[in-house]
């Protein structure tokens, strides 16, 4: 049994198809990364899976339970942390925990015990009486996660949980996710951060409602669409990067060139060697510091997939 399984999941808003026949299956205990540009349907999928938004067509099951026919049972099993900070700013940390505990039907000693556990697991002891709105981003997220886990869900949906929090807090949150996934909790996470995507055990990429890639990070990087046969990638460091990029794009030798930090990621024909590239660039007056062969990054993969899809869409018009 899959923790999350959808077949041809579709959502329409009038004539607009927000999600088109998305089929996803996520194993128990996986950290599933769901990626895609803004407005491509990520949140819509989450809302359908959590029962906030009715499903137009197709099926969705959480741990084998149909979301459409048994939303209440599904709700007992899932937790959700939305994009926006989803706690009550004016309530204290303790009040927020009490409320979520009560909302899930906990009471009496069970509630107290669960709150104590949450405080301990998230090291919130110092802040119990502070209003949630006065916590820093990282602590807010910990509290939100703590609240979302109060009722011991087995599947947790996190919609951009790390947007706008600092790198240290981000790292800590992910460490926590892996610890929990080790205990068998399944995570469905959306993110725009590639380093977070790299850490996921399973990724899917949605582009304007269409699921266009699904697999492990390595398998996505190795996709033939990302590595067209007869091509190779180089990373070129140059002191004046913008003029180097401009010149590179004028040269027929380059099939693609993008700036990453202080270097250019270039896609060239298989037959082109590093030395040839070097002399060609110098011939154009570009100063080159170093040229290294490059394995595509996840970002390369997603940019490539998006562009291919975009060309297909435009051709269809």
């Amino acid at each position, binding site marked *: 049994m899959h923790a999350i399984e959808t077949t041809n999941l579709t959502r329409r808003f009038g004539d607009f198809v927000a999600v088109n026949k998305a089929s996803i299956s996520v194993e128990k205990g996986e950290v599933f990364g769901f990626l895609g540009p803004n407005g491509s349907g990520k949140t819509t999928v989450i809302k359908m899976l959590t029962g906030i938004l009715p499903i137009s067509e197709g099926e969705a099951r959480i741990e084998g339970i149909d979301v459409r026919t048994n939303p209440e049972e599904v709700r007992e099993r899932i937790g*959700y942390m939305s994009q926006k900070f989803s706690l*009550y700013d004016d309530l204290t940390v303790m009040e927020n925990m009490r*409320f979520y505990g009560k909302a899930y039907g906990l009471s009496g000693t069970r509630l107290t015990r669960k709150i104590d556990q949450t405080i301990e697991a998230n090291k919130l002891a110092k802040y119990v009486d502070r209003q949630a709105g006065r916590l820093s981003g990282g602590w807010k997220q910990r509290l939100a996660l703590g609240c979302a886990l109060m009722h011991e869900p087995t599947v947790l949906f996190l919609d951009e949980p790390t947007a706008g929090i600092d790198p240290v807090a981000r790292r800590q949150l992910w460490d926590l996710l892996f610890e929990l996934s080790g205990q068998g909790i399944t995570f469905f996470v959306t993110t725009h951060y590639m380093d977070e995507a790299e850490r996921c055990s399973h990724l899917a990429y949605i582009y304007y409602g269409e699921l266009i890639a699904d697999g492990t990070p390595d398998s996505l990087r190795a996709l033939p669409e990302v590595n067209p046969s007869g091509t190779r990638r180089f990373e070129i460091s140059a002191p004046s990067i913008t003029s180097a990029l401009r010149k590179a794009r004028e040269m027929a030798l380059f099939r693609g060139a993008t700036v990453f930090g202080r270097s250019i990621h270039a896609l060239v024909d298989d037959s082109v060697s590093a030395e040839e590239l070097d002399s060609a660039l110098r011939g154009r007056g570009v100063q080159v510091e170093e040229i290294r062969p490059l394995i595509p990054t996840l970002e390369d993969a997603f940019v490539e997939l998006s562009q291919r899809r975009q060309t297909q869409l435009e051709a269809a018009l």
Partner: protein
Amino acid sequence: MRNPARGFGAIFYKEVRHMRRDPMAILFALVLPVLQMIILGAAIDTNIRQVRTAVYDASGSATQTDTPGTASSRAFLDRLRNSDTFRVYKFVYSDAELNEEMISGRASVGIKIPIDFDRKLLRGDQGQVLVMVDGSDSNVAGQAVNVSSSLGLDESLRRMMAPGQTPSIEVRPRMMFNPDSRSPNFLLPGLMSVLLIMVTVMLTAFSIVREKERGTIEQLLVTPVRPLGLLLGKIMPYFVTGVVEFSIILILMRFAFMIPIHGNVIVLGLLTMGYLFVNLAIGILVSTKANSQSEALQFCMVVMLLSIFLSGFMFPRETMPLWAYLISHFVPATYMIKIARGVILRGAGLQELWSSGLILLGMGIVLLLAAAKRFQNMTV
């Protein structure tokens, strides 16, 4: 086994905490209506008295230095003045001047006694008096016309009858329930109904909208809290606030404005709870529809205006055009005003008012279920 109001306790707990965190909001909501009641109750007198009147008495050989008029015209004017309805603030000496007083709005009533008034009376003909009334305030106009015609009639009778003779029929009006015809007695029970809207409709209308604006609503929707539990949990604290407000208003009415409560206070309280419930249900329904607090506020204004103008608070429902009269049946304040005036002024009890109470309860249930239904279908 499935509790349709699941999560009530959790939501109630949370709402009470919200209120405690922001006591000023509640205090403000409680104090503002009380202030309004004090101001309106003390300021508004719907009885028409001392209407500003300009007089042009052309009947005598008047110059500006003489006392104008003749003995009979002065006698008539004295009676007008003694009626308490008119206050003659100025004598003018031409039609043009009288017109000017009317047009400028300085005079609400202009009285002209023509040059031949005295002469005609002496001859035994009919003497005429022109009473011009500013129709822009229909209440004042109506009263001015009525009083001046009855004075004319009275004066005519007096002239026709022999000394010692009395009119054959005397009408003796007796104002029941409000013997001094005090405006606050009539106004405040209605005002109470309108003011209670402020603490109920408005506060609840904001409560769910706020969650939409903060983005916490989605978090709530994925919990097993059921719509009815959510709505009732949100309503309850404001219901208590409403009861507190009602008690303050009632105490103020009885002991500051000295309005005797002729009926049973318990009955009034019971029926008022029905009214509070309807308003809370309206608030919560508005809350599920509106997407922002400003949108919610606009809905509230509509409810407020309907309750002021179509409930019988300001204008009697009987004189409304048919469509307005029909609408007034759907305005909860209509029933509350019936109840409040009934119990407070006339000493009516459940026997007379049960149907109004039942209608309120029914309205409340229908609206609450509609809100729950909307909430269930809410697609964010």
